[in-house]
C-alpha cells in the first residue's frame, strides 16, 4: 500500500464523514420542520373544522321551531338553541359551551375543550386546540346586546370569534404554538 492509496482512503473517509454529518443534520432539520409543519397543518385543519361546524349549526338556529323560544341561553361563551339540524322534522337541542372556570387540557397550557352537545348526548369533547371562544349578540338594528341576553328573541345575529392553537409546541420543549384566528357575524335566517 503506497502513500497515494493511503491518502485516498483517508480522503474518502473524510468526505464520507462529512456526508454522513450532512445527512444527519438535514434529517434533523427536516424532522423538526416536518414536526412544525404538521403541527401548523393540524391547527389549520382544526380551525376549519370548528368554523364549518359553527356555521353549519348556527345557520340552522330556529329552523322548524314554530312555538317556544329558538334560543334558550345566549352568553359570551355559552349558547343553547333549538333547530331541526338535519331537516328530518325533529327539533334538535344544541349546546355550545366552555367549562367555567376554563379547564386547560393538553401540552399547550392555553387550550381548552369547546363542548358541542346535540340533544341529550353525554358530555364529551375533543381537544381541538381552542384557546379563545367568544360570542356577541346583536338585535335587528345592529345594537350589541348585553350578555346573558334576555329576552333571547331580540337576537338577530351572532358574532363568533375563536382561536385555535396547536396542542403541541412547534419545537419540542418550546412554548411557541402556531395558531389560527376566525371571526364572523352569522345571520341565522330563522331568527
Amino acid at each position, binding site marked *: 500500500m503506497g502513500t497515494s492509496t493511503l491518502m*485516498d482512503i483517508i480522503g*474518502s473517509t473524510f468526505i*464520507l464523514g462529512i*456526508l454522513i454529518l450532512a*445527512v444527519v443534520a*438535514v*434529517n434533523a432539520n*427536516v424532522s423538526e*420542520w*416536518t414536526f412544525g*409543519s*404538521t403541527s*401548523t*397543518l393540524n391547527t*389549520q*385543519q382544526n380551525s*376549519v373544522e370548528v*368554523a*364549518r361546524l359553527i356555521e353549519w349549526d348556527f*345557520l*340552522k338556529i330556529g*329552523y*322548524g321551531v314554530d312555538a317556544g323560544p329558538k334560543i334558550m341561553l345566549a352568553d359570551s361563551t355559552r349558547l343553547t338553541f333549538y333547530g*331541526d339540524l338535519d*331537516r328530518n322534522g325533529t327539533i334538535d337541542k344544541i349546546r355550545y359551551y366552555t367549562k367555567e372556570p376554563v379547564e386547560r387540557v393538553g401540552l399547550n397550557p392555553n387550550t381548552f375543550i369547546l363542548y358541542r352537545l346535540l340533544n341529550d348526548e353525554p358530555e364529551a369533547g375533543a381537544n381541538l386546540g381552542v384557546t379563545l371562544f367568544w360570542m356577541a349578540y346583536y338585535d335587528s338594528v345592529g345594537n350589541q346586546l348585553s350578555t346573558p341576553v334576555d329576552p333571547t328573541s331580540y337576537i338577530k345575529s351572532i358574532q363568533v370569534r375563536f382561536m385555535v392553537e396547536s396542542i403541541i409546541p412547534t419545537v419540542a420543549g418550546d412554548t411557541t404554538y402556531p395558531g389560527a384566528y376566525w371571526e364572523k357575524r352569522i345571520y341565522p*335566517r*330563522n331568527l
Partner: protein
Amino acid sequence: MGKMAILMILGLSFAVGIYTYIITQRSVEATENYSSYYAYTNTRNIAHSAVNIALREIELRRTSPYEGTFGLGQWRVDTTSVGDTVNMVARSWYMDASYVMYLTLRRYAKPFPEIESAVALNIDDIEFKVSGQGQIDGRDHDLNGNIVGPGLPGVTVPSPVESTTVVNEVMPPASIDGGVRSSNTMPDLSQYVEEYILNADYTYNPGTYSSITWGSATDPKIVYCNGTPSQVKFSGNVNGWGVLVVRGKIWIGGDFTFRGLIIVFGGLSVVEKDALATGAGTPNIIGAVVMAGAPGSRFEMKGNPKFVYSSEAIEKARLMAKLAAYEILDWWE
C-alpha cells in the same frame, strides 16, 4: 470505489427525494385544506346569489327551474308556489363542493295607500271644477268597468269645507255615486311615492304622448310622470295597468284607460279630461285616484271622464311583482 460512489449518490438522491416529498406534502395538504374551505364558502355564496336571482326571475314571471353559472360555479333553483307561499330549493356547485338550501318564503305587497274612495283629494281649499258629463263612481267595479257590488264613497276630502265645494260643483249630467265624505285619515303619499318612482318601469317628462301600452292584467307596471314645471299630456290611445305616479300636472284625454291606482302629488296638480273628447273617446280610470297637493290645487273634469272604484284593479296593482317583498318562513342551509 466507483461502484460505492454511485451507490452513495443513489442513496442520497433517494433520501433527498423523500425529504422533498415530506416537505411539500404538508404544504399540499395545507393548500388543499384551505381551498376546500374556500370552495365551500364560495359555493354557499353562489347559492345565496342564486336565491336573489330566482326572486328576480319570479318577478319577471319566468318559470322555474332557474339555472346559471358564476365563473366556474353553477347554480339551480327550483320553486313551487302555493298561494302566497313560495318554496325554493337552491343548489350550487363549485370545484368539488356543493351546497343546498331549502327555503319557504311568504310573498306580500309593500305598503300601499289605503283606498278610501274612488277619488281621494287630500287638498285644502281645492279648486274642483266639473264641466260636461264627468262621472265619479264609488261602487265596486270589475276590470271592465262593470258594477259588481257596493264599494266606497265617491270622493273623500279633508274637511266639510272641501266637501261643500265638491258637492256644489257637480251638477247633472255630471255625477258622483257614493257621495262625498270628509276624512281625516287620508293617506300620506310621501310614504309611497319614492318607492314607486325608484321602481318605475316608464318615466315621462313634460310633453305630449299618445299610443302607449303600459303592462297588462297579468303584468302591471309602474309609470312615473314628472309633470313639473309643465304638464305631462296624454292625448289618446293609452292603455295601462298598475300604478301611475304623477308629480305636478297631468292632462288626460282622448281614448285613455288605466286600471289601477293613480297618485298625484306635489305642487299645483291637475287631472283634466280632454276638452275636445265629446266623440273622440273617454278617459276611463278603473281603480282609484289619490291626490295630494298644496292648497288650491286643482282637480278638473271636462268632457266625459269616468273615475270608477275597482277593488280588483287596485288588488292587481298592489300585488304587482315590482312591489312584492318576501318574508322568510323557513330557511335551511
